[in-house]
């Protein structure tokens, strides 16, 4: 393993039905700063893999390391680990009872316990920047907002 490996899996196995592995001995690693695209037909396990990385799906066996720390152990505090692994879902998944701003403030304020005013200001600044960045993502305006405003977002499920 090189020093800059940020996330890796070893012999990851995951099945929804007994014996039918959707991920079978999957070993994989990502270096810091690397952009990795996982491509495949629908139902081949792309989303499942991402969900496993984020501990949203329990795995059958194997291990997941984040910054060389085993995170797939049962006794790990999942929400602490998820603070470090962002995820954008296929259907954007805003919380419909909150405004966009409140959607964005939720994680920084509740999880990272940051000052609300400060985050609000940051969001404002990013909102100005967004205009140029948006060109890249024009089709999914909502998505781009969340991607840009959440610096910790890393996994993007499309």
């Amino acid at each position, binding site marked *: 393993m090189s020093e800059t490996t940020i996330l890796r899996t070893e012999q990851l196995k995951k099945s929804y039905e007994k014996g039918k592995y959707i991920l079978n001995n999957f070993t994989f690693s990502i270096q810091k700063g690397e952009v990795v695209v996982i491509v495949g037909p629908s139902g081949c396990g792309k989303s499942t893999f991402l969900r496993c990385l984020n501990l949203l799906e329990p795995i059958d066996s194997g291990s997941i390391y984040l910054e060389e720390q085993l995170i797939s152990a049962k006794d790990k505090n999942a*929400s602490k680990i998820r603070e470090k692994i962002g995820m954008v*879902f296929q259907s954007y998944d805003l919380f419909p009872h909150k405004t966009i701003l409140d959607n964005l403030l939720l994680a920084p304020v509740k*999880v990272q316990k940051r000052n609300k005013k400060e985050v609000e200001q940051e969001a404002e600044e990013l909102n100005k920047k967004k205009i140029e960045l948006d060109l890249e993502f024009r089709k999914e305006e909502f998505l781009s907002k969340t991607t840009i405003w959440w610096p910790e977002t890393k996994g993007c499920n499309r």
Partner: protein
Amino acid sequence: MRDMGISVLFQGNNFVRLLIGLLASLRIAAIAMALSVVFGVLVGMMMRSKHGWIRFLCRCYLEVVRIMPQLVLLFLVYFGAAKHLGIDMSGEVAAILVFTFWGAAEMGDLVRSSLISIPKHQYDSGYALGLTKWQVTVHIIIPQTVKRLLPSGVNLLTRMIKTTSLVVLIGVVEVVKVGKQIIDASRYTVPTSALWVYGAIFLLYFIICYPFSKLATSLERHRKEESV
């Protein structure tokens, strides 16, 4: 002189007595509803338990409540407790117990159905942000559940207010009972009093329940518009 029957309502303090009776009805409904909300949330969460046997028990509870007429439940609790357990509870306490037993089951079912109407990805998104289970429940699930719950909850309250009229049969002096007393007392002086007194009771129930019913409708409409 031929008396207009309506005057019976204004003899002495009859009308005030009716209102005091109505207050007793509302007190029962309000206390039972408040308790139903608390227990209903618990029952609703239990109905979504991982354990099959807990869900089964909740199912049985709900079925029992739905199948048994409230009147039978009232008799069972009021007379049953006195005869078999030797507990002498007032009719009002028995009524609150029964209505809570009923309301918690109905409320539980409402909570259950609004919980399952929240898409799974709402939970996942919350977890993915690093929120704990508790934070997801408080900040994401409950606010959305309450919105879906309000219209049917208000409807349940209206049903409960109307059903309190049954408690007259276990001796609670509420609005129907007061009405009967007034009718009995003026049976010879005002023969048509029954019509007027029950008419007044009808109006009182209507005045109380209609706004709630309207409120439920407008909450429902509001929710639908929002979710479009």
